[in-house]
C-alpha cells in the first residue's frame, strides 16, 4: 500500500497589517520584522493637548527641526535594528568584550603594557566616558523630540550603546587601577577642569541646548563622532598597540566595531535627507561646516596630548576623511 502525502496550502487572506501594506504598495509579500517595527509607528494625528512646556507645538511635531521631509519614513536603518535584532547583536558583542576583559584580568595581560602607554590611556581614553555620557543625552533627546520612528528608534538604541561604551571605559579604568578609583576621579577632573578638554566639553554642552534635533544629530553623531572615533580608536589606539599596548585593542574592540556600523546609517541618513530637497542639503551643509570647524579646534589639544607636533596633521587627515565621506553622500562642504 502506498501512502500519498498531499500538502494543502491555506492562503492567508492578508499578509500584512493594512498600514504596512499601504506602505509596501500592496499586500503581495510579508513585511520584514524591521518594517513592521517602524513603518507608520509615528503618531501623526489626534493630539488633544499641546505640551505644557511647549504650547505652540504638538506633542509630536515635524516643525521641531528646520529639515523638511515629505515622508519621514523615507529613511530606513540599513542595519534593520528593531528590539530583537538590536539586543541579539549587542548581546553577542558583549560576550566577546566580557571574555576579553576576563582574559586580560586573569592572565595579568594589562601588566605587560608599558607605563607611558597606560598613562596615555588614563589621560586620553578614560575621560571619554564623559563624552559618551553626553552623547547618550543627545541621542535620547533626539529620540524624545525627533520625528519618524525609523530615526527616533535608532537614536534611542544609539543612546544605549553610548552608556555601554561609557561603562567599558570605566571598566578599563578599574582594571588598570586594580579597582581603585584614582583614574576615574582624575578623568572626571580632566573633563571638568583640564584646559585641554574644555573646548570639547564646551562644544558638547552647546549641543545639549540646541533647539533643532536634527542639528544635534549632525553635530553629535556625524561630526563629533566623526572626529573622536577615527582619531582615538582609528589612529591613537593602533599606535599605542604598536608600542606594546596590543592588549588594549581587545578591550576597545567594541568601540571600533560600533563606529564602523554607525557610519553605515549616518551615510544613509545624510543621503536620504539631502536628496529630498536643495534646502535640506543646504542646511545640512551649513551645520556640517559650522560643527567641523568647531570640533576640529576642540579635538586638537586632546590629540596633542598623545601625538605631540603631529596632532594637527592627524586631525586634519581625519577631517578630510569625514568631509570626503559626507560629500559622497550628498553633503559636499
Amino acid at each position, binding site marked *: 500500500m502506498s501512502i500519498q502525502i498531499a*500538502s494543502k496550502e*491555506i492562503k492567508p487572506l492578508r499578509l500584512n497589517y493594512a498600514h504596512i501594506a499601504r506602505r509596501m504598495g500592496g499586500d503581495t*509579500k510579508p513585511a*520584514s*520584522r*524591521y518594517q513592521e517595527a517602524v513603518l507608520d509607528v509615528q503618531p501623526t494625528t489626534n493630539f488633544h493637548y499641546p505640551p505644557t512646556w511647549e504650547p505652540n507645538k504638538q506633542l509630536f511635531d515635524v516643525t521641531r527641526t528646520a529639515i523638511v521631509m515629505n515622508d519621514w519614513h523615507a529613511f530606513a536603518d*540599513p*542595519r534593520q*535594528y528593531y528590539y530583537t535584532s538590536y539586543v541579539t*547583536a549587542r548581546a553577542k558583542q558583549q560576550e566577546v568584550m566580557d571574555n576579553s576583559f576576563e582574559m586580560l584580568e586573569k592572565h595579568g595581560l594589562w601588566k605587560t603594557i608599558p607605563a607611558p602607554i597606560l598613562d596615555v590611556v588614563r589621560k586620553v581614553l578614560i575621560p571619554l566616558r564623559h563624552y559618551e555620557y553626553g552623547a547618550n543625552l543627545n541621542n535620547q533627546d533626539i529620540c524624545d523630540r525627533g520625528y519618524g520612528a525609523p530615526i527616533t528608534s535608532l537614536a534611542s538604541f544609539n543612546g544605549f550603546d553610548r552608556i555601554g561604551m561609557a561603562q567599558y571605559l570605566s571598566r578599563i579604568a578599574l582594571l588598570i587601577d586594580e579597582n581603585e578609583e584614582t583614574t576615574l576621579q582624575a578623568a572626571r577632573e580632566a573633563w571638568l577642569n583640564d584646559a585641554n578638554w574644555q573646548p570639547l566639553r564646551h562644544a558638547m554642552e552647546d549641543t545639549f541646548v540646541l533647539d533643532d534635533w536634527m542639528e544635534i544629530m549632525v553635530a553629535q553623531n556625524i561630526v563629533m563622532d566623526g572626529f573622536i572615533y577615527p582619531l582615538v580608536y582609528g589612529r591613537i589606539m593602533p599606535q599605542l598597540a604598536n608600542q606594546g599596548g596590543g592588549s588594549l585593542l581587545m578591550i576597545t574592540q567594541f568601540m571600533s566595531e560600533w563606529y564602523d556600523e554607525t557610519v553605515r546609517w549616518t551615510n544613509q541618513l545624510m543621503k536620504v535627507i539631502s536628496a529630498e530637497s536643495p534646502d535640506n542639503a543646504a542646511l545640512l551643509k551649513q551645520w556640517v561646516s559650522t560643527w567641523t570647524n568647531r570640533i576640529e579646534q576642540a579635538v586638537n589639544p586632546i590629540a596633542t596630548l598623545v601625538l605631540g607636533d603631529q596632532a594637527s596633521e592627524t586631525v586634519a587627515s581625519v577631517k578630510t576623511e569625514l568631509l570626503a565621506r559626507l560629500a559622497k553622500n550628498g553633503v559636499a562642504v
Partner: protein
Amino acid sequence: MSEQKVFLIFQDTADSRPFIEALEQENPAATFDYQPGMVRIDGMGELKITREVVSEKAGRDMDLQELHLTLVSLSGNIDEDDDYFSISRH
C-alpha cells in the same frame, strides 16, 4: 530546454529572507513560487547571488555559507567563492 533549468528551494523564514531578496534583485528572470513553508526559485541557465547584495539586504556582513542553514534543495552545478554563489548547468 528543461536541461537548462536550475532551482533553489529555501525555507520561508526570516533567516532566508536576505537570500531570497538578493535572488529577486539579481535574477530578474527567475520565477518565485511561495509554497507552504518554503520558497522555490526557478531559473533558466543560471541563478546567482553576490555577498554584497545579500549583506545589504540583511543589514550586516554576511557569510554566503549561511545560506545552507535555510537551504532545502537545489539543482545545478555550484560555482562559489567568498563573494558569490551561483548554480548553472554545464
